[in-house]
């Protein structure tokens, strides 16, 4: 294990140190005193585990391919932007536009998230991304969703746990929301249904991993029912054009 002190370090220098450590074959890196540095793990391709102490800046794990990053506090915007594989675990809250165009890997957030989380996620038979949010989410959750798995738990929420325009423009993938879903909050392209047995297995597998990462009890999380959200049409705008 190697420790890198990020105090007062420019992001470019910090990332260079991380890449050098990875090239040396380090399997465990701890970044101490991180304070808003952008692009941690950006484009990084390796099987390495990185622990972030302090609050990292935007675009953490952008285009990342393989590493596991654990953030022991809150995180900011654009985490896992177009990420290809690997895992990001956030023990606190996180900001807006998480997992934009995400193609694979996992993003586990313990707390709340902001607007437009999980937008335009992709996926196919080869790979697909998973985002699990423990707290509440803002508007446009899962917008333009084209693939992958998006799970919203609202573990602390008494009231509505998700904002408006849930899944608007959705044309692929699956969203699970713990508790009830107000149909008025959903985009027109979304159908709300009860999960079947296969769905529950998918959920349980995903959540078991999430709970193990964040020290939660799976039974507690599964104690409440889920709703499944899927696109009603593969071509939501097929009739929009005259010729």
């Amino acid at each position, binding site marked *: 294990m190697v420790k890198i002190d990020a105090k007062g370090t420019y992001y*470019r220098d910090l990332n260079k140190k991380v890449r050098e450590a990875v090239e040396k074959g380090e399997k465990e890196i701890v970044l101490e005193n991180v304070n808003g540095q952008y692009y941690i793990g950006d484009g990084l391709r390796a099987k390495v585990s990185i622990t972030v102490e302090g609050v990292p800046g935007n675009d953490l794990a*952008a*285009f990342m*391919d393989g590493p596991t990053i654990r953030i022991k506090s809150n995180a900011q915007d654009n985490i896992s932007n*177009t990420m290809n594989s690997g895992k990001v675990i956030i023990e606190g809250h996180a900001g807006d536009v998480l997992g934009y165009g995400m193609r694979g890997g996992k993003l586990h957030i313990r707390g709340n998230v902001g607007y437009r989380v999980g937008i335009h996620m*992709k996926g196919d038979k080869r790979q697909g991304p998973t985002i699990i949010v423990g707290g509440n989410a803002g508007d446009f959750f899962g917008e333009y969703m084209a693939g992958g798995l998006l799970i919203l738990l609202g573990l602390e929420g008494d009231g509505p746990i998700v904002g408006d325009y849930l899944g608007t423009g959705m*044309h692929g993938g699956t969203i699970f929301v713990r508790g009830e879903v107000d149909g008025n909050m959903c985009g027109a392209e979304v159908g709300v249904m009860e999960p079947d047995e296969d769905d529950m297995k998918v959920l349980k597998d995903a959540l078991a991993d999430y709970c193990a990462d964040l020290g939660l009890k799976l039974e507690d999380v599964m104690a409440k029912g889920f709703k499944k959200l899927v696109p009603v049409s*593969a*071509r939501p705008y097929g009739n929009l054009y005259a*010729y």
Partner: protein
Amino acid sequence: MFRSLAPPEYLATIDRVKCIRCKRCIQNCGWGVYSWGGDKVLIDTFKCVKCLRCYHYCPEEAIEIKDNPTRFKQNAYWGYNNIRNIKKQAETGGIPLTGMGSDLPYTILFDNLLIDACQVTNPSIDPLREPMELRTYLGKKPSSVKIEKGKDGKLKLAEPAPPQIKLEVPIIFSPMSYGSISLNAQKVLATAARECGIVMNTGEGGLHEDLVPYRKNIIVQVASGRFGVNPDYLNAGVAVEIKIGQGAKPGIGGHLPGEKIPLEVAKTRMIPVGTDALSPAPQHDIYSIEDLRQLIYAIKEATNYKPVSVKIAAVHNVAAIASGIVRAGADIVYLDGFRGGTGAAPSIIRDHLGIPIEHALAAVDDRLRQEGIRNEASIIAAGGIRSSADVAKAIALGADAVGIGTAALITMGCTTCGKCYTGNCSWGITTQRPELTARLDPEVYAERLINLIHAWTHELKEILGALGINSIESLRGNRERLRGVGLDSFTLDILGVKPAGR
């Protein structure tokens, strides 16, 4: 009962005496105009788009495609397309789509600009017998360089120069994605780019594995849909382009119809087969110049600092926006003008939003010079470049290079019929139907595109020779060598060009 109150645009006709019933027209038409009626070829002229595929493949020259003489009453105010679109909208409630750049008769500034030539006082140059330099480097140019003596005693740069893209001719192939055009059409572009020492741009549909061998002649694009973007992709080409907008449809997103998403396209884009590929109107991680900077550097971090281009549509405030793009760290600003092509755009957007490339280019070049940052980024001008004269005029207005899309497709058989969005292109260009794409043999058609670039190269050299200069660098931003004809003083002022005769 009538089929539609919008009469067919074209009449496909067959000379029944000449016709030998070989059925080649039926095979060749991607639109289903022709069918076999047992003893003769039947014609559904409503479906005809005048792409001329049948005409060229009829061995007896029996086919003629006419503009339908039965049109709405001629009216100087209510144009044919106004009436036609209203009728279509009344029938469907939908938005009329279109392909290609706008064909409306707005003033074409390129056609009101003329290039200078040498007479008596300054010798012209004969490019066939004297060296003529068209080579162009795209990228950030340092405002100063430090030189030091190396260990071997030779002088060298003290700091590494910013990365550059080398072009043998100041022309690139504009972004056209796999999905909007066929893989064979992309192979034509890639083959010609390699042969001509220039680059093609993948567009936003990802990079098919067949194109990987051409990586030294490819710019990869990252757009709002993030299709096919992974670390391999970002590092696959010589540069990465962030697409913010497109001249044919400024401010709106992309929408590749499900008909054009078969398995291979779906795999490359990583979306379900047969869904519409949606590109959001904005990139939702970019709401400001600061956010743009964030994505530019996210890409630079992921690619060990490859050049990053930012493509925008030419809009009213383009000069200030371009200044912001340069300050955000872009190495190249790609300006796409009002006439720029598209595979699919609502015609109301294509025909009424944005500004022409000539105005935008002049305004951006001016602004970057005034701010002292013109060297910080190269400018690519695109959106309706039709000939080498347009290339020369664009370069004189301030472009480092131009992008051509439509012109390249025309070498592949395109007749600008404008129906790219249907996925039925009989020439195999803007379709994914295997029986149609198989027609476009990449080797055969690459030869034609290479010919075009070579022809334009010769013409550009002739123009430079007439101007008495032997390097394209001397024409760059050299508006003194342009004159305006029939342009008002405001326009001349924006273009920074004198009227002819002065």
